[in-house]
């Protein structure tokens, strides 16, 4: 297969959008937390928990959207743990985040074993099916890529627009951004930094969990232990790459996913015979590090990111 053929094929772009979808949810979730001033390293564990919670809920009989809701609530509950420790108590966001990832992952695996003690391979569910949008999906290349996806992918794109609108156009979004820039300014205007930051962490964590649930409810139809596989950490890099802006973060996620889809196809070409497959699998992580390095110069980082706010401090 020629490289140009890959880039011009509708299936390639459809795959890219599909791969991007969970990243979009989780990146937007992380972005909300960071805009409010909290680095949420619980993201990896929250995605694992969300993937499992959504899937097990559907397996137990809930409709698919019910599974999404369960994932969201699971993420918010875990986000609450992070928020309590990192916001009012102001504990190290690094330690709390890594600890939460360990906790969420362990809880997930434990619950899996308790609910399904003796299974050798996890049961499958009826996942989200592609829902082509009439007319739009008939556009060549773009149509099948963008408009023949599952409803959860459409939801991801709508979410980006919604979050951008809330952040930049509403009083609530202004308060969230201000909490990440200058918590003292927020407090002086009679708003509670604690409530705003905790709320942002909880909502953001909810979206991370939905990102995880995309894997079990839309991309695949079952749950595996190594499913999330560092996607959370990649999303943290994507937030930096997107300069903490929803639109740029979306663009970054799609670019990243396109690269990922490209390397999968490249493996099947002549290049794949020469290079070991591990090199291709490393690409997403190496790319994330490169994105961090390139973007490190253009610091648009929220001024109060990782800075706890303690009213009593003078």
């Amino acid at each position, binding site marked *: 297969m020629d490289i140009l053929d890959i880039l011009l094929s509708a299936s390639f772009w459809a795959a890219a959008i599909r791969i991007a979808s969970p990243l979009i949810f989780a990146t937007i979730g992380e972005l909300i937390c960071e805009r409010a001033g909290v680095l949420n390293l619980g993201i990896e564990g929250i995605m694992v928990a969300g993937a499992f919670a959504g899937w097990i809920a559907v397996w137990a009989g809930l409709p698919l959207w019910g599974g999404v809701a369960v994932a969201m609530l699971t993420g918010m509950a875990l986000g609450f743990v992070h928020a309590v420790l990192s916001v009012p108590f102001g504990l190290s966001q690094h330690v709390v985040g890594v600890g939460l990832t360990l906790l969420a992952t362990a809880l997930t695996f434990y619950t899996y074993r308790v609910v399904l003690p003796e299974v050798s391979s996890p049961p499958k569910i009826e996942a989200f099916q592609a829902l082509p949008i009439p007319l739009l999906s008939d556009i060549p290349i773009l149509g099948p890529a963008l408009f023949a996806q599952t409803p959860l992918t459409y939801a991801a794109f709508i979410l980006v627009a919604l979050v951008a609108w809330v952040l930049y*156009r*509403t009083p609530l979004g202004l308060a969230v951004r201000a909490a990440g820039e200058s918590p003292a300014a927020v407090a002086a205007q009679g708003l509670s930094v604690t409530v705003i930051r905790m709320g942002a962490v909880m909502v953001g964590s909810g979206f991370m969990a939905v990102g995880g649930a995309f894997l079990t409810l839309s991309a695949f139809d079952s749950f595996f232990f190594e499913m999330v596989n560092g996607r959370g950490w990649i999303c943290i890099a994507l937030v930096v790459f997107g300069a903490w802006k929803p639109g740029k973060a979306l663009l970054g996620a799609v670019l990243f996913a396109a690269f990922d889809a490209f390397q999968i196809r490249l493996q099947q070409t002549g290049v794949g015979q020469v290079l070991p497959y591990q090199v291709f699998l490393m690409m997403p992580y190496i790319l994330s590090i490169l994105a961090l390095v390139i973007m490190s110069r253009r610091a648009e980082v929220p001024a109060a990111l990782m800075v706890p706010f303690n009213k009593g401090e003078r």
Partner: protein
Amino acid sequence: MTAKDQAEVVLRLSNITKRFGSLTANDAVSFDLARGEVIALLGENGAGKTTLMNILFGQYTADEGSVEVLGRALPPGNPRAALDAGVGMVHQHFTLAGNLTVWENIVLGAQGLGGLSLRAGAVRARIRALSERFHLRVDPDAKVGKLTVGERQRVEILKALYRDARILILDEPTAVLTPQEADALFGTLREAVAAGLSLVFISHKLHEVMALADRVVVLRHGKLVAERAVTDTSREELAALMVGAEVTTPEFQMHAGGAPLLSLHAVHAPGLNGVTLDLCAGQITGLAGVSGNGQGALSDLISGLISPTSGEMTVTGQPVQTWSPRTAIGRGIARIPEDRHKTGTIADFDLTENAILETYATEFSRGGWMDWGRARAHTEALIATYDVRCPGPDTRIRLLSGGNMQKLILGRVLETGPMIILANQPVRGLDIGAVNYVHRRLDEARLGGAAVLLISEDLDEIMRLSDVIHVMSEGRLSPGFARGTKTPAELGQWMAGDGFDAVA
């Protein structure tokens, strides 16, 4: 305005008590504020002024007592309720988000959080109207981070006015302004009072208090010690009330300078624009200016944190090649940093570990091993010589008062017998006893032949101690003026940037 209006009480503080651990920050403080009245809240650093205003504004909850605004009790610990009742506060350290625009900062929180739109157009129009009415010129679409300190203060006042404040609290509002800007601010405030606002204004500058206030409330050690109408008191009486005794401000003689020990010639660096300066032996050189005009950069340069990008720098006759904090210390420069908590000390280190921060490598370690016995003995000697009040050298320094912390820093840098001393805001936040102690030590160093650079935002301090005074504005340095040759107003003009072009 009739006498009846004058008498209407808009704010009543009753019996406010607030304790922090064993410290009583406010002890049963009560006073009233009438409509259209200006009260000055006077007191030394640490007298409890800011705590009292934070209680009034709902950022702290009082342990006892109540706050009434326009006859209604404010629920404690709720800034929102204070704002809604018409109390606005301009904090000493501005509470603004630098990456947001002026209008975003002003409207933050003013519309609740449930709205679907910020209505930016209407917000901007209202801000423009307010700025016009109160002569508070500022561009609503500018990023706050790009504004000057004076402009930022205007934004702070606009924030309060935007929310229809009836009572305005200003915490040390002139600390960051030139004398001219301070006058302009007083003009604005007088207009606001004429429009029916009432003011509480916190200060320790007596001339401002006498100029603006109707009534003065004096706090000392958390207690209200006196209430005076401005017409019935004098600066001398207020000063005595504030400190609790007759104040003796020591006089410092002027001295002729010796040879220059540190020279800058046309030095450029980030924040510095062609600075030429001689620090001469046996002299205190004062550096005045509004904060953020390059004093920090000059201080960083002399400290060794930054290097000149162009121009010449000579220390004790030797040109500077490589430059770092360690080489600066090695060349005999003593540095008293601006922020003793953030840069001067390490809060969770004990006194010994803090005392040897600059000299550990040369004096207290051998072959990579620390000599803690010597370090401890050295620290004990410093504690005795510099009168640091503390339980012992093993105390974590965060438990010390600001004055004692500063004494340890003084000891750390002066004990080596430095020839050049950089003192950046050495008395900020200290009580009068500690202030006099620091000044006396600097004066002694001058008598011992050291060249001292004193950076301060307090023009009175500069004019009292310095032999030569320079002014900084936008990274440029004025020529040196001998003490007494320029009035505060003339220096203020330099601070505002006038005069530099004529020199250049």
